[in-house]
């Protein structure tokens, strides 16, 4: 038996960070795999929809139920074990373990409570000269690993380490009909576009969609499909529509001491020119590059002056027009590498005098603090201008494009927004050509304009070979972009796979594709 309770209309299980609210009947909180499977089986037999929730930190409504029950995995949390294979060390985790918790366990180097997945793995990991960490930094460190895998999360460090997908070794997935599969990367591969695998007493075999998932840019738009694909990749980024992740192995990486840097430039244009050079410079070799435009800096200046929550944000110098934030690994040849940074900075109106730098934790934290103060400042700002529309005060983009299209996309953003007369700030993962454009909405009219501009951005991103959802996923909120990227045909093909695995369409209904009955 498992815990099952009616959901009240103000329940936290009906919403996530997107602030979208849904409707649901019950919340089911399984404590282990067998309870989870039992719950799925019972709901499947009744044809009762279930929506899976973890830490509910998503921003696209992926865990928000539209009907039926919520399965919250909150009690299935914890690091189970340590293993090692030819690629390196990995850890075995339950789905609702947070990224913070994973890194805390790794940092503690006390694995006595864990099991050895491979022989002596714990001992070997402790004996390593450097600590290890889970390198995908989705910014929200309180999100669950299961949620991260389900939407193929990425973040600033994707610049060096790639998205979540690259770190998934093995998954245990409960399928919509109640069976489970336990698959490692390499276990099952599609034969051309034909995917076949056994699950319990069933055997699935179907044609995968005909599109090729765009891996050339940071991309979280829908499930991955391509010729000869690995079965595990079908579940990573599928937002729960094909199955529920109940256990995972993820690789970890050795940690290196880093130095954080912020370079200030007089103007946004100069700053963006510098990005192009920094990105391709082998000597600088940044871990990530984050951008803060002049509007962001001005907003932070205004808000930090009055907001006590911004207590540790370093005071911005007056000359700071625009800023780049990047980490570098601390090596013996820092002077030579910084000489390269200096050349690049000076070509574009900056200099090493007009910068910040720090390798001690306290300084690095404070630079991160500055970067994180931007979304916070936006939040404070929109709260202070009483918009006409309760609930919606801003709209944020999440689009990536290939390197060669970066300039075009950036100028398209400002052209369109300026033409529409909207107020906005731009900041974020410029290293991956994936800045967040946050549009501030002051009226209903702004809202309509922003919607129109947003749609044009998505179209432009796709046209330039990019993704309209680079890291947040599709969920329920961005579903319309699926057709934009994959065409009606692609969407229909995803639907077909969904109906083979989940004939009663019970699982995570409304995520990625709408299934009409």
């Amino acid at each position, binding site marked *: 038996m498992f815990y099952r309770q009616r959901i009240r209309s103000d329940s936290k299980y009906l919403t996530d960070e997107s602030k979208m609210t849904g409707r649901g009947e019950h919340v089911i909180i399984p404590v282990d795999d067998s309870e989870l499977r039992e719950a799925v089986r019972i709901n499947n037999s009744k044809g009762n929809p279930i929506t899976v929730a973890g830490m509910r930190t998503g921003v696209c409504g992926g865990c928000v139920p539209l009907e039926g029950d919520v399965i919250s995995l909150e009690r299935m949390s914890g690091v189970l074990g340590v293993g090692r294979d030819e690629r390196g060390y990995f850890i075995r985790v339950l789905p609702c373990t947070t990224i913070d918790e994973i890194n805390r366990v790794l940092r503690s180097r006390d694995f006595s409570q864990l099991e050895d997945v491979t022989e002596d793995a714990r001992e070997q990991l402790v004996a390593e000269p450097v600590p290890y960490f889970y390198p995908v930094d989705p910014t929200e460190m309180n999100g669950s690993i299961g949620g991260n895998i389900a939407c193929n999360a990425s973040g600033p460090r994707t610049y060096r380490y790639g998205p979540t997908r690259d770190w998934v070794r093995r998954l245990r997935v409960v399928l919509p009909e109640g069976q489970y599969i336990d698959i490692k990367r390499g276990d099952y591969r599609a034969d051309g576009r034909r995917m076949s695998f056994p699950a319990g007493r069933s055997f699935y075999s179907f044609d995968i969609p005909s599109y090729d998932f765009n891996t050339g840019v940071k991309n979280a738009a829908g499930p991955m499909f391509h010729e000869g694909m690995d079965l595990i990749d079908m579940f990573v980024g599928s937002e729960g529509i094909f199955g529920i992740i109940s256990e995972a192995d993820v690789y970890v990486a050795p940690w290196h001491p880093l130095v954080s840097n912020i370079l200030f430039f007089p103007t946004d244009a100069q700053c963006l020119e510098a990005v192009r050079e920094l990105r391709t410079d082998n000597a600088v070799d940044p871990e990530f590059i984050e951008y803060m435009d002049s509007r962001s800096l001005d907003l932070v200046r205004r808000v930090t002056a009055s907001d006590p929550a911004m207590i*540790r944000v*370093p005071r911005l*110098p007056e000359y700071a027009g625009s800023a780049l934030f990047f980490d570098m690994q601390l090596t013996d040849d820092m002077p030579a590498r910084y000489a390269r*940074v200096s050349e690049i900075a000076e070509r574009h109106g900056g200099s090493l*005098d*007009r910068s*910040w*730098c*720090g390798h001690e934790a*306290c300084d690095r934290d404070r630079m991160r603090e500055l970067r994180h103060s931007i979304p916070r400042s936006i939040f404070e700002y929109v709260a202070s201008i009483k918009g006409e529309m309760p609930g919606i005060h801003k709209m944020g983009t999440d689009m990536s494009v290939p390197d060669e299209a970066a300039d075009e996309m950036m100028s398209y953003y400002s052209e369109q927004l300026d033409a529409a007369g909207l107020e906005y700030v731009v900041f974020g993962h410029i290293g991956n050509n994936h800045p967040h454009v946050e549009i501030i909405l002051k009226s209903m009219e702004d809202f309509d304009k922003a919607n129109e501009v947003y749609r044009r951005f998505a179209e432009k991103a796709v046209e330039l070979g990019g993704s309209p959802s680079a890291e947040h996923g599709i969920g329920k909120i961005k579903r319309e972009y699926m057709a934009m990227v994959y065409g009606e045909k692609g969407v229909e093909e995803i639907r077909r796979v969904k109906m083979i695995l989940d004939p009663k369409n019970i699982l995570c209904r409304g995520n990625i594709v709408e299934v009409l009955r």
Partner: protein
Amino acid sequence: MRFAVAVKQVPDTMEMSVDENGSLVRAGVPAILNPYDEYALSKVLGMRGEGDEVVVFTMGPPQARQALTRCLEMGADRAYLLTDRDFAGADVWATARTLTAFIMRFVPDADLYVFGRQAIDGDTGQVPFEVAAQLGVQQFAYVESLSSSEDGFTAVQDYGDVSMTCRVPRGSVVSFGAVDPNGTLFSISDYLSAGSKTVEEVDRVSIGLGLYSVGLRGSMTKIVSTKTSSGARRNRKVEITDPAKGAGFIISELEAMR
């Protein structure tokens, strides 16, 4: 002009905890530059003009070099590390005596001797004024702002109930009263220039003090015993639905205290 800034390396007391047995957990607690000293140094660096020199010094074990390196990265020009086994166990008096002897030998001509308000591990804040007395110079405590003019400096001191503005003669001791949480960070240029600066080690003999003038032997106080503070929090959590009951809890704690 020349400024001499005294700093200290301290364990990050915010990271310190007490284990189940009540003993202090020091392992893994990072050593940092005392935040009050960092603030004082940043104030001095902020008023440094062309040709001015900022000298930092600390007394501590060899690892305290790290704190000095940070000072150099922040922009200080020279650093001295007063390190000697004989310095160990010094109380306020012995510390002040050692620092004073150092000052008289190595930076006797500084225009200002600058300190932070207190160290976060000892919280005494007494050393600056003992040094001032031993140097026989004026002292300026709780300084909020400091400006320089041709004939010296002007300090604004915050005594809580009064704010006092004084002219500071050259050679005085100044202790800053605060920290600035929004303070700025050092630049890549500063960081790189620290690479060419050196930390000079100074031992007891080179400041000319006898074995019984420094460290534990030179101290005027001694620790008779230490125990872990009841600061190890019991951390009992109670969910309160009835405010009256919650208020009752607190009131009974207040009464128990009497």
